[in-house]
């Protein structure tokens, strides 16, 4: 994929000053995992725009995106998950949620003791967000929440 074409498209359609965030000159944050996955608590975080039917949908009208996130409890009925995200084709996820949000497969791995445990809550953002400062602020808030709940590892998936 040609990233310059994507940048040009975004500048024409959304924000004339658009640029992807560039961290190549900065330090990469890194927390070495000091235990095995089979002894760790894991959270799944998706950018698929998933939310419970009783929760507010994401704002799909704002051309700069929606930096908020939604909680998907481990015990939620995943058959009733809704998607508010117009920037990807839902044809795969409509057939099988595990393509994008494989919570059922992670539960299976936890039952087989390949993963220590799963967090009680998992999370979805809506990908495509140009409000990066607010997104980072929300991610820091989420990180604090995860730590309070003993979560040590995160599997993060785009759409």
């Amino acid at each position, binding site marked *: *994929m040609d990233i310059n074409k994507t940048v040009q498209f975004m500048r024409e359609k959304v924000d004339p000053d658009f640029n992807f965030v560039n961290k190549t000159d900065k330090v990469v*944050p890194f927390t070495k995992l000091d235990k095995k996955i089979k002894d760790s608590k894991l959270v799944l975080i998706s950018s698929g725009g998933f939310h419970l039917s009783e929760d507010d949908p994401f704002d799909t009208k704002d051309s700069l995106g929606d930096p908020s996130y939604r909680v998907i409890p481990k015990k939620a009925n995943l058959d009733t998950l809704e998607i508010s995200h117009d920037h990807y084709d839902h044809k795969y996820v409509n057939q099988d949620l595990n393509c*994008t949000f494989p919570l059922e497969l992670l539960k299976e791995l936890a039952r087989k003791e390949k993963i220590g445990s799963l967090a009680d809550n998992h999370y979805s953002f809506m990908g495509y967000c140009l409000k990066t400062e607010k997104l980072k602020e929300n991610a820091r808030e989420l*990180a604090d929440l*995860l730590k309070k709940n003993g979560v040590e590892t995160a*599997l993060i998936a785009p*759409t």
Partner: protein
Amino acid sequence: MGLIARELESDGISTVTLNLYLEIAQLVLPPRTVSVNFPFGAPFGDPNNKKLQLQVIKESLKMLEETEEKGKIKILNYDWREKIK
């Protein structure tokens, strides 16, 4: 999602981030990236291909457990709709 991964990692949570657009991972530099050659909307593989989806998850968790190289990008060469034996 790389930005979110970086914030979590800065706060002490170990993360692995799947990627469908390699050039973005090379710019944003998430702490650990697993790049897959799948279409948008299906980072874990095609619908109802449980073996492939599990393989992507296991490879991702393995990287989370083993990698000590900051910003490493691991490229998985599975084909879309590949049948895993």
